[in-house]
């Protein structure tokens, strides 16, 4: 994760002072800790891995154990200002379900994910091997990722599900990619809302 801290900076820019923030797949709670320090948010993390959960507790971060595949049952509609999912969406089977749940419990969702369409990944496939990179660090046989998608794929899914893409930023090696992000960006960060 540490290689992609720059997505934290983008996320932080979208969060306002004192907001209620939910971070899905919060790991050791570093992002929330950062948001508490610089934005004084009331933050809650969600984590299902007991070791990471314990790390969040040790970090002094509120963390709730929950299986994201089952949605966000128990959380009130619109309670949060922002719900964040940093580099975890690709590891969840129930993609549409969790997106719906995120936009149910929060007014706005912030999502980052590794772009499978990144040119190096394409090159790797052309060479006959599954991509392994900074943004996709695992081998095919041990990856926690279960969904492999590109920026273009995600845009189409949002369109199909009535999700408004309010902002979309592509990055490669920490640099903002303005042209051809689906080809040149290894990671994408989205700001999403309900298109109603």
């Amino acid at each position, binding site marked *: 994760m540490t290689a992609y801290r720059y997505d934290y900076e983008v996320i932080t820019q979208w969060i306002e002072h004192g907001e209620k923030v939910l971070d899905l797949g919060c790991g050791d709670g570093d992002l929330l800790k950062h948001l508490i320090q610089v934005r004084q948010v009331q933050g809650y993390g969600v984590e299902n891995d007991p070791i990471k*959960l314990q790390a*969040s*507790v040790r*970090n002094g971060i509120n*963390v709730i154990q929950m299986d994201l595949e089952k949605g966000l049952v128990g959380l*009130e509609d619109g309670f949060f200002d922002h719900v964040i999912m940093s580099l975890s969406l690709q590891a969840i089977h129930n993609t549409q379900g969790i997106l719906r749940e995120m936009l149910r419990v929060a007014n706005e969702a912030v999502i980052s994910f590794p772009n499978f369409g990144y040119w190096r990944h394409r090159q790797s496939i052309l060479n006959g091997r599954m991509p392994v990179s900074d943004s996709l660090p695992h081998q095919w046989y041990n990856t926690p990722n279960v969904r492999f998608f590109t920026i273009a794929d995600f845009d189409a899914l949002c369109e199909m599900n009535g999700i408004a893409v309010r902002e979309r930023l592509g990055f490669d090696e920490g640099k903002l990619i303005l042209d051809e992000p689906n080809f040149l960006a290894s990671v994408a960060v989205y700001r999403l809302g309900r298109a109603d």
Partner: protein
Amino acid sequence: MIQAQSVGVVTAQRADFNTPLKLRSGGQLDQYHLVFETYGTLNAARSNAVLVCHALSGSHHLAGRYADEAHNIGWWDNLIGPGKPLDTRKFFVIGVNNLGSCYGSSGPNQMNPSTGKLWGADFPFVTVEDWVESQARLADQLGIERFAAVIGGSLGGMQALSWSLQFPERVGHVAVIAAAPKLTAQNIAFNEVARQAILTDPDFHGGHYYEHGVVPARGLKLARMVGHITYLSDDAMAEKFGRSLRHGRNTYSYDVEFEIESYLRHQGDKFAGYFDANTYLLTTKALDYYDPAFEYGGHLPAALARATADFLVVSFTTDWRFSPERSREIVYGLLHNRRNVSYAEIDCPTGHDSFLLDETRYHALLSAWFDRIEV
């Protein structure tokens, strides 16, 4: 990190109270006493005290052993001690025996000061809130204005939760483990079966069995057997006993055949040998009555709005007596009040009793939580 150690030899203490305690039942205790134990040292700022609340059959004897009873180890000895998750080098830990118990505090088997006889069935009904009130008075006597933490499992977890509602300014952190914001109908039903077993025992004598020189041992045994089934998980029982037969074959009798029968009878007999039936009745009623949301029209988040502590809520996946769903109600109730709360659902096979065991991830979590409490 030092090697985890025992707190060693401990001694129970006693505190007497002469200010009447008004009870939720409408009754009153004019005079009463509490027995308690402490471990570690209260710091100069009096800011490192942790109160541990006990469950149905627990007591103030949390850790260590008595000089004259080497085998009588405290019930949460695996959690409390130097180098243990609740580290007595950092914290001053207090265990209080609840009113109505049979382990030395004012209760049915203690003398009623107004009659000079044992209380027996005349001991008034006590509730979780009454216990918390009495614990607060003990804290006053000990010069503890505010607890760094209050922690408890099961019925003890209800007391910890109640502390955060009755005395929000007097507790910094609260750990509610394997508990519930109220019992379900099914849970009350199990308690009722247990009580009926005691109440219908011919040796019960309306609760005044002490005067008859007998104890309702059969009723108490049955009560414990029913309870014990609910404290274990189906899987744990299958794993431990399965359908194992004592004699390797069916004997077509009502003697012990299946090993689970042997186990339950043994647990029941053992319990009936040391526990008090009146205490069992009173304590199960306290469990049944607990429902902080009742006066808020059943709306738990409204009831929890008073709480200000930092919470840790823990449940166990195979606990069906106090299921994870009930713990989540507390968690979401606190979260929707913007309170600090963390929640862990420990994946382990041992049912409700898990909260007493030293399951690695459970204890590691408690260590992490206690470590970050500043005193």
